[in-house]
């Protein structure tokens, strides 16, 4: 056999091998996937019924002199048949069945409260599910760690607070955010302190996720957010400023004013200026007008927007200066803030719309239109 034919045959063999492997992979994947899904569904249905029975079953009232552990003894009796059943299984089968039990418990945990919830939490501890999940927080697979962090919150496993707090420093952001959410379920608003202290370099996505958590508490979160302003991590400081502005609680004005004036980082100063504008407190007005002449463009732009949000008449003169001197973007911002100052501002813009400068005239026209004032009639 010549080398050429050998080469062709080798290539043919490789291609055939891959085609067969991929095709078989496709068919096997499809078959196994549906079989596995069906099997898990069957087990889940079976254990959901069992779990429903044990968590909804009425328990005899305990005598008044019974000890605190009396109720746990009752729970243990309810759980005994399930435990026995799992004990008798082979290791592999038990693992699969425990997974189905866990899924059933997690689903119930989302919907129950009061004594039923306590009973369910006890079952999780007693079956060793909580310890299993805590161990999974150390898994080398980030998705297992994230899932465990999520499940511990749903299962209301208070034993997991310390390991979850440690997980806030996990390298994977998905794991961190799941831990944050679970800590909030377990510790309420006070968890924010730990979260803001331990979190580092949070992405904008994580900040958005965290903002949803913070907004559940609103004013209750304010002291922790003000504390968070002292963080050495820029992303946390920015997040706290944003949240303080969003919640709109004026107790943050003094801290924000100090940051807007003195903070060494301009990005954070600009964010604080923006927040002051959103809070609209009189105490910040002087500082905001002063910052309209700041040499840092971004800081100045934020100050222009901030005075516009408040609608400051006292800022008309420096705003007009920015309108005449700044680049187009700044001109538009300044014109909007002038218009927001009320009739005096509108009158100023109306006089500018007849200016000789094309750009100035265009900006005035655009902004008057944005404020629904017909430029031809103004």
């Amino acid at each position, binding site marked *: 056999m010549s080398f050429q034919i050998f080469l062709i045959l080798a290539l043919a063999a490789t*291609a055939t091998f891959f085609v067969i492997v991929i095709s078989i992979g496709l068919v096997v994947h499809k078959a196994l996937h549906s079989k596995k899904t069906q099997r898990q569904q069957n087990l889940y249905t079976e254990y959901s019924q069992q779990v429903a029975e044990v968590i909804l079953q009425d328990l005899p009232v305990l005598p008044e002199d019974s000890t605190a552990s009396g109720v746990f003894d009752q729970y243990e009796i309810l759980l005994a048949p399930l435990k026995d059943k799992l004990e008798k299984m082979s290791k592999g089968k038990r693992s699969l069945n425990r997974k189905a039990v866990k899924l059933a418990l997690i689903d119930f945990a989302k919907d129950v409260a009061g004594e039923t919830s306590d009973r369910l939490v006890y079952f999780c501890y007693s079956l060793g599910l909580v310890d299993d999940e805590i161990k999974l927080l150390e898994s080398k697979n980030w998705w297992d760690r994230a899932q465990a962090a999520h499940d511990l919150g749903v299962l209301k496993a208070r034993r997991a607070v310390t390991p979850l707090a440690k997980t806030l420093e996990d390298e994977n952001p998905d794991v961190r955010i799941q831990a944050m959410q679970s800590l909030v379920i377990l510790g309420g608003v006070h968890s924010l302190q730990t979260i803001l202290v331990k979190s580092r370099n949070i992405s904008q996505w994580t900040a958005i996720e965290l903002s949803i958590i913070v907004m559940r508490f609103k004013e209750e979160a304010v002291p922790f957010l003000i504390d968070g302003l002292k963080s050495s991590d820029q992303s946390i400081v920015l997040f706290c400023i*944003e949240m303080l502005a969003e919640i709109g609680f004026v107790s943050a004005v003094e801290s924000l004013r100090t940051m807007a004036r003195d903070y060494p980082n301009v990005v954070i100063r600009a964010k604080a200026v923006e927040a002051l504008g959103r809070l609209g407190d009189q105490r910040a007005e002087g500082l905001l007008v002063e910052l309209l002449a700041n040499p840092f463009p971004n800081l100045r732009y934020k100050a222009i927007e901030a005075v516009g949000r408040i609608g400051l008449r006292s800022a008309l003169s420096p705003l007009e200066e920015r309108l005449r001197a700044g680049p187009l973007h700044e001109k538009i911002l300044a014109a909007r803030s002038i218009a927001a100052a009320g009739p005096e501002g509108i009158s100023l813009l109306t006089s500018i719309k007849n200016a000789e400068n094309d750009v100035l005239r265009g900006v005035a*026209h*655009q902004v008057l239109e944005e404020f629904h004032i017909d430029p031809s009639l103004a």
Partner: protein
Amino acid sequence: MMTIIEILLQAFFYGVIAYFIIVNLSYTILLMLSYREILYYMRHNSFSDYRITVQSELTPPISILAPAYNEEATVVESVRSLLKLNYGKYEVIVVNDGSKDATLDRLLQEYSLLPSNQVYEPALTTKHVRDIYKSNKPAYRNLVVVDKENGGKADALNAGINVAQYANVCAIDADSLLEDDALQKVMKPFLEDERVVASGGIVRIANGCEVVNGRVTKVALSNKFLPIFQVVEYFRAFLSGRMAWQGVNGLLIISGAFGMFKRDVVIEAGGYNHETVGEDMELVARIHRTKLEKKEPYRVVFVPDPVCWTEAPESVRILSRQRNRWHRGLLDTLLIHRKMLFNKNYGVIGLAAVPYFLFIELLGPVFEFVGYFSTIAMLALGILNINMTILFFIVALFYGVMFSVGAVLLEEISFQRYPKARDLAMLLSFGVLENFGYRQITLWWRMMAFYDYFVKGVRTWGTMQRKGFSRAA
């Protein structure tokens, strides 16, 4: 003693084999990389709640750019679909690129648009912008229509970028349909990593699907051959090609039908190039080049889940024009950025992505054509080893099938958009069938692209007639 012809033939044979091995090795590596990337994406995605982008004030706003040229049949419905997307704050900027039909009139009438006094700041140079329209109806307050002189798609997109008021711009085709959560998903990489400057979503073929109120409600394969062949091609291109390249930050194409960019980065790179028909690829290549030359950290990513549905050509004539245009665009981009080829200063782009696109994607048809031609010539000369040639063609067929099946497998383990087993069987069958005729026809169209580019000097888009999406009964 071997004659010179025999020596040449043997050299040719080994050349073909070497090229064949390189091509298929590249495809295998890409397929494996894609598999890894898709698995990561699926896991990562399972922990993401995209609804937060709608709920939170922190979600950055987006400007959607939809250039429209002679789109009177579809433009009203496309814009309505864009205005109903599920995202926080966004504006829709439709750029009427000097349409000769009633595109602008349809928009003005349907959305109660009036000329606006908005100041036009040309950060990028474009053809004359005649007017900017905004609606006086509150429901359409986030709609802006720019009417400009005809300058081509790139020019229209640049005008849209000039008008855009937000820091992130999303370029789409006016005749495409985005899924409700597509913006949330394509935006996520920017929020997770501040180095991300561009992100592309997957484009799927809507022919055969049921469309209700600008939304694909039922996914199915078309009952025509051409769109099904294209579904398999799109799987290969998106799931097994772009997914792999983005994993190593070597993605050179973000489809013009659906891509998100940081506005300042596009302006910094000079905007879309008016002089090429491959303006989408050229922009991405230029962004890579600009960032690498400035040594600034950046990432260009592909997200396989945010879906943009598009109508694929159903006629051979229109498909041939599209493929010809795509190949001319590729050729043009690689010529413009030839400096990056095998240049280590451009990292993965210079040493892997550009060579791949040059030798495999661009010149692949040439090598294949030469192969067919020389086979016929050798047959005519009576010097062809017929058995070995047949064997080689069978091998080539197997490899072709392997990569098509691999791409279908990627779809099957991930998104499973085609729920019926019948559809899966059809896709696999077409993965085999495309090697008998369809592949050779597309090869010819791509070969003609060289002729059109170098000999006829064709640099225009050509026309693509849309019939509009089919509606549910």
